[in-house]
């Protein structure tokens, strides 16, 4: 499975409070949450994001709260994949569970710039920067994670099995 899109680039320690501020957590409606995604660090994100776009950041992406609303907001906003140097552990787990593909790749996190056109192959973990004509090797997803992502999250994956 491959995705392709334009890159939104962020730095270190992007926390779940900026991904989706707590003031909007009085709802669990996915569309409502997506409207405020990244609002406190990038007010234009939601205006500019297109379906399939990719988010790239540096260290410790998704640190802070356990709110699953954070990966839900990113996914519902249209982001097809998040690439980072590494992820905070609860966010990592939540992203897999809700079917938001995420990839750890320090080289990609360092070299990809905002606006680059990037393609990600989930089967191989290969990241292709079309704009810069470069490739970076991320870690491929283990098979069970690929199945969860393909099903659109853990719940759908469980329901498929039943």
């Amino acid at each position, binding site marked *: 499975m491959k995705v392709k899109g334009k890159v939104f680039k962020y730095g270190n320690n992007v926390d779940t409070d900026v991904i989706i501020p707590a003031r909007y957590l*009085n709802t669990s409606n996915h569309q409502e949450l997506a409207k405020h995604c990244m609002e406190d660090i990038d007010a234009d994100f939601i205006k500019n994001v297109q379906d399939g776009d990719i988010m790239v950041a540096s260290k*410790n992406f998704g640190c802070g*709260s356990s709110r699953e609303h954070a990966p839900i907001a990113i996914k519902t906003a249209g982001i097809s994949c998040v690439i980072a140097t590494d992820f905070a552990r609860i966010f990592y787990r939540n992203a897999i569970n809700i079917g938001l593909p995420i990839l750890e790749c320090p080289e990609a996190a360092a070299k990809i710039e905002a606006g680059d056109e990037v393609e990600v192959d989930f089967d191989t973990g290969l990241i292709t920067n079309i704009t810069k004509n470069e490739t970076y090797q991320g870690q491929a997803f283990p098979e069970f994670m690929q199945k969860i992502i393909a099903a659109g999250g853990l719940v759908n994956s469980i329901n498929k099995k039943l």
Partner: protein
Amino acid sequence: MGMTMTQKILAAHAGLSEVKPGDLIMADLDLVLGNDITAPVAINVFKGINAKTVFDKDKVALVPDHFAPNKDIQAAEQCKMMRQFAGEQDITNYFEVGEMGVEHALLPEKGLVVAGDLVIGADSHTCTYGALGAFSTGVGSTDMAAGMATGKAWFKIPAAIKFNITGKMNQYVSGKDVILHIIGMIGVDGALYQSMEFVGEGIANLTIDDRFTIANMAIEAGAKNGIFIVDDQTIDYIKAHSSKEFTVYTADEDAQYERTIEINLSTIKPTVAFPHLPENTKTTDEITEPVIIDQVVIGSCTNGRLSDFAKAAKIFEGRKVAKGIRTLIIPATQKIYLQCMELGYFKTFVEAGATVSAPTCGPCLGGHMGILASGERCVATTNRNFVGRMGHVDSEVYLANPEVAAASAILGRIADPSELPKL
């Protein structure tokens, strides 16, 4: 190969005699926790997987604490949804407003967590219970739903960092300063995916409340969990609060640690985390430019316990909050509230010019009860100072211990209690 405390608890709950870092296991859960923000998402997932009943109605805890007492109509709907679910499922440990409190202060107080337990909670500060020698960690709502349905969760066995604690804390230093000092040293990702295991002779000089505060903020260093050795103080606490059986796990002599960090409590000074990360720490004597503030919050799952208010009351006794400073006192549970009242702390706070709120997470996460406007600054005994955490995106939160927070309220700027004029 020897195992750490965490590895032993995880192995025991998976029915394994040995585990090593990186192993994936399926473990039995002793308790699954959710609150009014995370449980509604989990309840939808629970219904989505066609689960009928929770695995054990005594082993699920639901606490409306974040936006409760209901801050607005939408929050009221979320609390209502959780209340209805608790009713349908006959959940034993659902705590309504009037008996509830901030979840991580409430659960140990109610005796729901003891040494050796394995607890997951859909709240990142679930790691608090490591203070009692339990393995506890934050998860998302989907994991909570799966945990409620099956009583199980998968874990990757973490490596660990050992913190060897020695010495004794000085005046105006408490658990908050210890953990801020550690986060300042290793960074907000310094323990990413790892356990923080606290051992050493100095543990005896940390009260259980100090340990709750330290374990609570393990997540702010990226840790999977923080855990303390069990000593006489722990056992006294557990026996005083719970009738549950407990198990004491100790690390093997040859347990493997990624690294060992020496912490001498006597060298730690009152410490403040500046915006916008808990790792941006300065000791109070390193603050050269006055930091003028607008608000002080004393409360939360980090520092909303009785000893925190005892310390704050001692500072406020006979003194006044500076003109124009809003000071909010938020006892974490009903029991703590009552004790503060009986011990006369509320009188001290109110006479000083502070206001007292019902238990709630409230302002800590920018929910309600003390939201900041643009450009405003707050000294808070809470756990996070991220951008926009307590309100406007251009507001600032400074994390501190209750004595520093109280002294700051009195002087109208971030202050060390030793700066206060003698009475």
